């Protein structure tokens, strides 16, 4: 292993710098452009971060040091891929967790309750399936994925439905079943856990 110096690390560091710029842009847009749609703010921030990645990579790279043209392209592709993957992880693995993850919301309710915690009944009064369903229906209607006619819901766009079907395929691949409940029923895990929670938490 050779050639590891501070200047040589500036190129690989470009995607991390780009991610930090993306997060900063996202915070600024969320705080100061309140009228901007949330998905649009995320997209603009990701674009600004990508521009920062390219700028940093170009200014940190001595073209004569890269060797062949192929090596130059390879480095460029690596850094671009690294930035895109890091940004995806930030948006869907961190920001979206706070936006829609049930586990995070439950943790926030439990944290607010302090050391004495909450009974299951109180926890479900603060956060329950009714609220979750309402929020999802609202988001799906706003995004044009579903439509309501005469008190009944219908599919309007198939884009997210395709994603849902792809997830079912992945569940079959990883869990051997189309839903987490069927997978758990097969392993007997969910029933055992639910019995224990009902016994100990009520």
């Amino acid at each position, binding site marked *: 292993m050779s050639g590891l110096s501070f200047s040589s690390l500036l190129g690989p560091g470009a995607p991390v710098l780009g991610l930090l710029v993306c997060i900063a842009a996202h915070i600024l847009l969320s705080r100061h452009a309140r009228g901007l749609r949330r998905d649009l703010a995320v997209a603009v921030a990701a674009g600004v971060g990508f521009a920062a990645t390219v700028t940093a990579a170009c200014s940190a790279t001595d073209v004569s040091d890269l060797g062949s043209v192929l090596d130059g392209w390879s480095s460029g592709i690596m850094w671009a891929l690294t930035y895109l993957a890091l940004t995806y992880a930030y948006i869907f693995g961190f920001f979206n967790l706070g936006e829609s993850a049930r*586990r995070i919301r439950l943790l926030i309710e439990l944290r607010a309750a302090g050391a004495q915690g909450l009974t299951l009944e109180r926890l479900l009064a603060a956060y329950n399936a009714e609220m979750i369903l309402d929020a999802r229906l609202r988001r799906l209607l706003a995004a044009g994925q579903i439509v309501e006619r005469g008190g009944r819901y219908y599919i309007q766009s198939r884009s997210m439905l395709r994603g849902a079907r792809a997830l079912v395929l992945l569940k079959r691949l990883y869990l051997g079943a189309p839903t987490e409940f069927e997978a758990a029923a097969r392993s007997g895990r969910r029933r055992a856990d639910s019995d224990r929670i009902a016994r100990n938490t009520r």
Partner: protein
Amino acid sequence: VSALLTAVAAFLAFAIVHVVVWRLRRPRAEYATLGVLWLAVLVAALVAVHRVLLQANLPSLAGVDYVNVVMLYTALALPYVTTYSAVQADSPAMSVLLQIDGAGRAGVTRDELRQELNDGRLVIPRLEDLFRAGLARRQGERCVIGPRGALMAGVHTWFRALLRMEKGG
């Protein structure tokens, strides 16, 4: 080019090992096991590429190439694990879409959705996840947050406040 190929090949190996291990026996501590697999595959890939280049009398990777490999491999693993969390737990929005689609031209009412998507389906399993991961614990009749859970909730609460956004979920 070797660095790019090494990182992509290592990531594909990580995904394949994940599927194989999960189909053999799905671990209870899923994300901790994924972390161990991530590290094991990375170390194996770096050792393998070093040996292959040595045996083929090719120049070994430079230090910066190893950094590039670790960065890209890790960056690819993060969204992969994020996507897996949507596989591991049924998403309410996806469940709604699949149920509406399953009803076809008849569509579904809110009450019909509600019958299927109840607390036992949407909330209790996620609470079980928190207990299983040690983020919260049962204390008599109560659910109490643990130190790691409090840290996680605190980070998200702080970040949502920074974005001037309301509580999610």
